[in-house]
């Protein structure tokens, strides 16, 4: 029994090693972690097999290391997602919905992938995803595939792209064919 567990652990370690052994992953993570406070605006396009046209949302992003991410949609309607210390709070008007990520691991890829990346938290990324790193001409892409079965039933992959320490684009592919692409324009950091 013990051997099986050990074998699993070795496989796991080997697996993630091949995924992120590309030169520059750890360096990039370290570089990203140098920017603990980020502000930016975003434009997000949601497409669905049910819809002929994408739904476009615009808003703002705020990140404060290590574990606070605020995503506010300003149009077409005002709504805020606040990720803080493992709890996601959705604020709509005077109502709050809160849910703890530990109670809902299936929502981690959806809610926590950007925060973990911006925090340079390679341990959290490795715990929840199989990360794959590629880099070309200074642009990089980190493709995250959920490990949790229930999460994988919801989200196929999260692709995070950027240049240097700057976040550029987040693409989420869902198992049901839904897709969202968020283009981020970061403000120059302090």
């Amino acid at each position, binding site marked *: 029994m013990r051997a099986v567990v050990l074998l699993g652990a070795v496989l796991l370690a080997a697996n993630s090693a091949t995924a992120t052994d590309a030169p520059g992953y750890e360096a990039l993570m370290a570089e990203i972690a140098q920017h603990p406070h980020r502000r930016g605006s975003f434009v997000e396009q949601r497409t669905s097999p*049910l819809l002929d046209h994408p739904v476009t949302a615009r808003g703002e992003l705020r990140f404060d290391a290590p574990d606070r991410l605020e995503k506010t949609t300003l149009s077409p*309607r005002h709504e805020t997602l606040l990720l803080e210390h493992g709890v996601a709070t959705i604020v709509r008007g005077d109502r709050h919905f809160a849910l703890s990520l530990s109670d809902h691991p299936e929502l981690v890829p959806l809610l926590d992938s950007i925060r973990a990346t911006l925090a340079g938290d390679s341990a959290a990324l490795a715990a929840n995803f199989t990360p794959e790193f590629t880099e070309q001409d200074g642009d990089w892409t980190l493709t995250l595939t959920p490990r949790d079965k229930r999460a994988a039933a919801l989200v196929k992959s999260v692709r995070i792209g950027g240049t240097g320490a700057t976040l550029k684009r987040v693409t989420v592919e869902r198992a049901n064919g839904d897709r*969202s692409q968020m283009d981020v324009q970061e403000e120059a950091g302090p």
Partner: protein
Amino acid sequence: MRNRVLVLGAWLAILAICGYVIAQARFSADLSAFLPARPTAEQQLLIAQLREGPASRLILMAVDGADASERADLSRALAEQLRGTGEFSLVSNGATSSELSDAGFVFAHRYQLSGAVDAQRFTVPGLRSAIQNSIEEFSSPAGLVDSDLLARDPTGESSRVLEAMIPSLQPRTDHGVWSSADGRRALLVAQTRSPGSDLDGQARAIESIRESFVHASAGSSARPVGNASLELSGPPVFAVEARGAIIREAKRLAGISAALIALLLIAVYRSARMLAVGVLPVVTGATVGIAAVALGFGVVHGMTLGFGGTLIGEAMDYSIYLLVQAERGSGAAGARWIETRWPVVRLGMLTSVVGFACLLPSAFPGLSQLGLYSVAGLIAAACVTRFVLPEFLAEWHAPQAVTALGRDLARAARALSRARRWVWALPIVALAVLTAHRDRLWAHELTVLSPVPESAQKLDQSLRADLGAPDVRTLILVRGPSLEAVLEASERLDGRLVQLVSDGVIGGYDSPNRYLPSEATQRARLAALPDESTLRSRLTEAVQGLGLRPQSLEPFIADVSAARAGKPLRYPDLRGTSLAAGVDALTQHDARGWTALLPLHATSAAVSGAAIDAAAVRSALAGSAPAGASVTVVDIKRESDALYESYLTGAIFWSLAGLVAIAALLGLALRSLRSTALVLLPLLIAVLVVAAGLALFGQPLTLMHLIGMLLTVAVASNYALFFIREPLSATAPAALRLQASLVVANLSTVIGFGVLALSRVPVLSALGTTVAAGAWVAFLLCVILVPPGEAAAQ
């Protein structure tokens, strides 16, 4: 000898009978001591709310100390532990809204639960606007809306239901859990399963919170959090602490004052045996008093026991009078005391009995019990002093040292008598102070009687403010014969209540039909759903131009068809969900039927204190009750304050009546207007001075102060009666012993009640302050006012 055996036998027999009665008696410690014995229908509803209502089961918790992330970890660990205990129907700390955990249930029954479901919603324009809205939901930043949800619930009923269930006022969150507004405490809320009146159940729940906290801070997390502390508040905590506090505090303080008084008496008597003998009247009085209350009322309030100390004030004096005054040991000493001094003590006792008897007709069970307890206890104590104690006097050697004390008093009296002409200024000044403070002389709120210390009340207020859970002051109570009847009746209020919200009269309201609509309403909703082919054709038309392919909504059509064939939800269907908890929290039932509770929230501008205009709500709801149901608007704080106000007025009236009765009794016994005036004056002035002193210190007077004043008159009437009976003397041995006995009696009263004044329980300290100060001032005034040689003239 035969006589002695007879007396002792009778005494022991009475004690044994009373002991038996007490052993059989029921003791209670709940609020009912403060509630009327014969309530009106409205008061009955109020009492049921205070004792059993959902608010009575709410415990507020605050985790203090450590840093924000450690507090958040603790809050999570504590919530998890508490959910595991099974003592609570609800534990919230903000980490996951409990409503969301029932999202699956809500989704499956969205067409029964959603208030938006009606025929209009399923017309072409109704469907179109609802679907348009749902497509926009795709822009939500959390991305929780997806194609699967759109295909099955394109009109967004499930999120509508969930949203309606989430309270609009919520605390701030820090590190993912609720925190106080200043960010220094993590907050949690739990509702106990056991009803508010089940104090043992509440005590168990509180104990499990404390244990869980110890576990949470020591065991579960990797880093033990040693410097974090837990504070609890809320009605169950108050009720359980109140049960313990008065009795514990009374015991602790009674222990201290008993020790101090024992020291004093040992110093005077120089005999442990006589000390024991001297306690017999008090013990007998307390036993007889409690037994009388048990027989008269069927139940003894903890409060009555708590004030058992009132007896020490006077009953202890009886034995002091006998033991200090009686002459040097001979069989005749007792007989002589009975002949000369007993009539004075008897008159003093009767004065007190008349005073306390006036509490008997009070509508306030706490007061009438105290009255009966005192009347029975004082008579018993005096009788023991008169009939039993002299039996122990044979070997008694009256202490000689006390004569020095008597001589000191005579000297002090001579010095003090010079102040006599100034004493008349005292009542004038006191009356002036009382007149100046007349508007804020009396406390008018029930909370002043609460045994909960002010600091705890402050903590409760601050936690409630932080939790956005202001004390529910105004409630609508809908009564009817069945759950269905009250659900229907409260649904009929919805329209008017929504109007009141938009008029700004109320900020919002809760209602059990958010969690369980009446069957009639659910049936109407299901009947409003179109059949399959109608819905399909309407959808085709409705989605034109929305960029949505109508055939992708087949799952929706299937769900609607299934819902049409379904049945309305009934209460048992909700079992195990937070919806059932919502219904439980807002309904009650008893032998007479069901009650739905609709708590009203103040507008957000008014959350901090300002009240809802209950009269406006009442007039808006007038005539809204269907046949067989009733709708009542209750302003809990106003009703309970009005209740207290009526007790206070009643108690003031009966106390004044008692004063008149005491004056009449003294007039009859003394047969002299002048002597009666001389006895009453120092007592009245003392009461005025104490009241003025309390007013000067900004202490509003309460029922307990009033009882303290009554007790002051009872205790001090003995002093005055003795002083007018025998002139002060610096030489006559009998007079010296009398004087000494008065000094010792007064000292013991001041010590006993002075210790009580230090209590943190407001009712005890009010009583202690009043009697200690009153007895001391009255004693001084007696010494100053009663002219030496007064009795020589008689």
